[in-house]
């Protein structure tokens, strides 16, 4: 069993600049920030190394950090529509070793304008649908993903990614009125 700090040191020695930072701000669980284009190699190492043996990806989720510049473009009715320029979208990985009983959290951030993260489906098959969901709701593109389609929204949904902070719902979809 290893602590998050131990795992960070092992990763830092192995991958150098691809492992960016270790955060341990209580009361949040400690997490490791990594490079979005190296995350597949880091995860493969976490999975295979005999001291780590992280065999289970418990969860993979997307986050809109909303840390860009907010531009108020218009007001329609009661709602202000703002567009966010710049900033990042993030992907979080909650990883566990069921053999060695340790857990680790990875975070990777990618620019909002061109969000690209390398897939980890080659390491854990279960990541495929989690990544499809993050793509569906945040528009994060997972490079080398075997089947990157929408998973929850309709396949022909062309109004953007619903969980982004500057998302605006359409008036109509397939002839059906969407707002209340």
């Amino acid at each position, binding site marked *: 069993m290893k602590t998050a700090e131990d795992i960070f040191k092992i990763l830092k020695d192995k991958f150098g600049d691809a492992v960016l930072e270790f955060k341990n701000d209580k009361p949040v669980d400690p997490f490791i920030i990594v490079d979005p284009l190296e995350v597949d190699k880091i995860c493969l190492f976490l999975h295979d190394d005999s001291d780590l043996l992280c065999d289970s990806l418990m969860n993979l989720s997307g986050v809109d950090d909303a840390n860009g510049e907010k531009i108020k473009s218009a007001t329609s009715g009661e709602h202000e529509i703002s567009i966010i320029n710049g900033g990042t979208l993030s992907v979080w990985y909650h990883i566990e070793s069921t053999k060695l009983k340790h857990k680790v959290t990875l975070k990777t951030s990618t620019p909002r304008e061109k969000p690209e993260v390398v897939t980890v489906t080659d390491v854990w098959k279960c990541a495929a649908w989690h990544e499809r969901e993050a793509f569906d709701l945040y528009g994060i593109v997972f490079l080398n993903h075997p089947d990157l389609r929408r998973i*929850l*929204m*309709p396949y022909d949904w062309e109004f953007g990614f*619903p969980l982004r902070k500057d*998302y605006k*719902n359409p008036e109509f*979809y*397939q002839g*059906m*009125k*969407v*707002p*209340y």
Partner: protein
Amino acid sequence: MGILDKEFSQSNIVITKTEDLFNWARLSSLWQVGFGLACCAIEMMATSASHYDFDRFGVIPRPSPRQSDVIIISGTVTLKMALRVKRLYEQMPDPKYVISMGSCANCGGPYWEHGYHVLKGVDRVIPVDVYVPGCPPRPEALLEGLLKLQEKIRNESLVRKSA
């Protein structure tokens, strides 16, 4: 039904109007589409089970829309599902009836404001005969909804549809 006096009953003759006979037959064996959407479907299944016994009103789930008379929209209708619900409804033969069960199917329910994926009421895609309020409605409420539908069918006319 209008049954005449004893002299007829002795000879096993019943006199009624065609309309009444048809309506009685229709309301007494409403086969529902075997179809559920969300937590309301659990209550709908409870209504079908032995304790509440939907079958005593002639309601049994039929696993094909082509042989069904009523569809109970039991749960949240997402935009993706709405197209499928409409297709199921169109596949049902006339006369066909719709019970909208629960707040989600009635008006979007808790998703009315921020549910980017939810249709705010199934009546935006198919015509609803009876709305059953509740979140989810208890089996008694669904039974009452069915009785309301039966009442509606009892007063239908062959020459003009009431709904």
